[in-house]
């Protein structure tokens, strides 16, 4: 995992380096002169391999962090902790100095501009541990609570066979857990429907495509059939990113 991440990282990302404020000023200054992002990524990786063969009794001389700790990428902010090096002061205490590497959103005032790097960050997300959403257990929201609140009901809604017809249909947006409902009676064409739906999720209608589930349970792209036919067969709606 780390191999592909680090090469990915080295090739594609630009970094803004900022040093963590360390109370040991000497180490802070030494960091700035020696730090080279590309070097240290590889260094950390090789260093970790080397450690496997080391046979030190006293680990205090040779502490390493878990290799690369990935943060919350897809919002265009990543947080990488890369181990720099150890300093030993005179009292044999080990101080590790950590350099925080930020990628900042291009919208931040005063920050160095970044390309948003969406495809790359999405791939990086796949490489992290855990449930594929990012770091395990972050943000610290109890998962059972999340499931408990967003559980889909077993009952059909809107336009099931035989029941009186309601015109509210569920709309899901890819990547958003909380769905919405739309009253299809208020629309007469796809041209009004799609922007309305996109707006509900804060998206632009050009960035989404509308799909729907018909009475047979199949998912189809909206727009192929006339509006009237669509209204009669639609069960639920889903917006997907283009």
């Amino acid at each position: 995992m780390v191999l592909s991440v680090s090469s990915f990282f080295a090739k594609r990302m630009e970094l803004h380096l900022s040093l963590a404020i360390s109370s040991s000023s000497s180490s802070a200054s030494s960091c700035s002169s020696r730090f080279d992002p590309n070097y240290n990524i590889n260094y950390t990786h090789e260093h970790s391999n080397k450690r496997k063969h080391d046979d030190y009794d006293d680990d205090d001389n040779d502490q390493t962090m878990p290799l690369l700790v990935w943060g919350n990428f897809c919002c265009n902010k990543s947080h990488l902790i890369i181990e720099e090096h150890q300093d030993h002061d005179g009292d044999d205490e080990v101080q590790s100095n950590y350099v925080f590497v930020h990628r900042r959103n291009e919208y931040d005032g005063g920050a160095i501009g970044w390309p948003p790097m969406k495809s790359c960050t999405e791939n990086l997300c796949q490489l992290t541990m855990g449930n594929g959403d990012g770091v395990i257990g972050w943000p610290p929201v109890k998962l059972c609570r999340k499931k408990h609140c967003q559980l889909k009901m077993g009952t059909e809604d809107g336009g099931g066979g035989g029941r009186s017809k309601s015109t509210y249909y569920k709309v899901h947006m890819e990547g958003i857990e909380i769905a919405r409902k739309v009253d299809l009676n208020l629309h007469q064409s796809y041209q009004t429907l799609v922007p309305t739906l996109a707006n509900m999720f804060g998206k632009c209608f050009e960035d989404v495509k509308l799909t729907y589930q018909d009475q047979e349970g199949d998912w189809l792209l909206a727009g192929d059939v006339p509006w009237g036919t669509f209204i009669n067969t639609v069960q639920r709606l889903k917006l997907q990113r283009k």
Partner: protein
Amino acid sequence: MDLNQKRTRMVDRVDSVDPDLVSPESTPMCPFPDEVLEPVLSLINSHKDRSSVSLVCKDWYNAERWSRRHVFIGNCYSVSPEIVVGRFPKIRSVTLKGKPRFSDFNLVPEDWGADVYPWLSVLAKAYPFLEELRLKRMAVSDESLEFLAMNFPEFKALSLLSCDGFSTDGLKAIATHCRNLAELDIQENGIDDLGGDWLSCFPETLTTLQVLNFASLNSEVNFNDLEKLVTRCKSLRVLKVNRTINLDQLQKLLLRAPQLTELGTGTFTQDLVTRPVADLEATFGSCKNLLTISGLWDTNSLYLPVIYPACASLTFLNLSCAALRSFELAMLLIHCKSLRRLWVLDTVGDMGLEAVGSWCPLLEELRVFPADPFEQENVAGVTESGFVAVSRGCPKLHYVLYFCHQMTNAAVATVVQNCPGFTHFRLCIMNLGQPDYVTNEPMDEAFGAVVRTCPNLQRLAVSGLLTDLTFEYIGKYAKNLEILSVAFAGSSDLGLKYVLGGCPRLRKLEIRDCPFGNAALLSGLTKYESMRSLWMSACNLTMNGCRVLAKEMPRLNVEVMKDEDSEDSQAHKVYIYRTVAGPRRDAPPFVLTL
């Protein structure tokens, strides 16, 4: 006896102190005969007070242990059930907590432990008349629930919070056999929901139910049986149904139980309106005693207003399952002038929080949960301005849990200036390592302001880009801090050293993904016995460091959870806690006690 020594002896409020050592002179100046002492002491309920009482002298120790009816064990491994029953002969109520809190976020592997069964088998012999059992983060099997139902004839109250390992079959056993059941409270558990027929197991003779909470279960229950149960239990004061209960059914239940003080609704919308909305509104109006409303799944502008007539006396409103928009919340809060506690989703936005500040001057607690915690693009949610708006309008605010994507140091400083009475300050900036988004500086000054301005701070959770300076502030100023949660923060060992060197009242410290190493860990040697527990995961600890700690402090359990991915010398997950029970005998293979 100085404070630290005293605390060392209080192992989660259950002592194994040899009474002779407590006080060398046990001849009191004003002797109270036991007949006076015991009734007086039986009025004392606070655990802290009872612990203090037990340390006065041998007579008071004995009087206290005989008069105690409720025992609270904050860490089930800090003491053995045999020690507990040996000291307290007349317990009627037990509260047990098990796994470390980070197990809520999947950081603790399954089968870690905290099985309640060993406790139950000891309690059954010693306390056959046990009435109440409250469990948090324990592993509870169906067999345990069946054992409980069959072995405690006077059993009255069962509360399971964040437990796992059981199914609705276990609940069937409780419903069937506990003839005097007054409380069944099932919250946020990892439960295997096999169906709703457990509810139908309550016998027709059961009329003692006061609390019924099955909101977190998914399956449909038999509504007729539920309605009959609610009708015959005249003392029912807390009813929290699950999402399968629709509005019509809820109305029927409310008509049967107008005395309710806490209500958790089912789904709060419907496609088919069989009763006019006005009817529902009137029903809510007839519930004069409601203090708490929760549930409200799927609600919208059409149905939410039916609860307005009940809002004037509400003190707690839990909207964390209702994705309200700002104006919906605002319209609702106009009616909630007595509100003390409010839980919402961040769909309400900053404007919704402005409404909170405007309409809820008595607010003491606010929790804002993220509707899309794992959504990383284009999320709205709440920002620092909502936080400030609440603090301006709610000077009594002392408990906050706030999930957001951005924050500034200045905003936090303003918030605590407006509300200096904070006891619980939990700020979660969901983007890892996020600095102050205006100044791009670390968030150190924010938390510095919190600890400097809020002398009563007991619980703190930090987030955002943080250096050692944050911890220097915490160690220096947070004199009353008891619980600290840290994730992805700090720059060096110094951070942890500051905290361990300060914070005299620290009880629970949980740390993940921070650059703290062995030196920092070992700097807190003398402190850990005065704490309940320390959790450190994905930090910079090694097995050798942990071994040194274990060797120096034999009254601590130093447990390392081995991960397949991590190297042998790394201590990936470390859980350290004081105990009088020695190393765990039920540790799974991946837990090493050093």
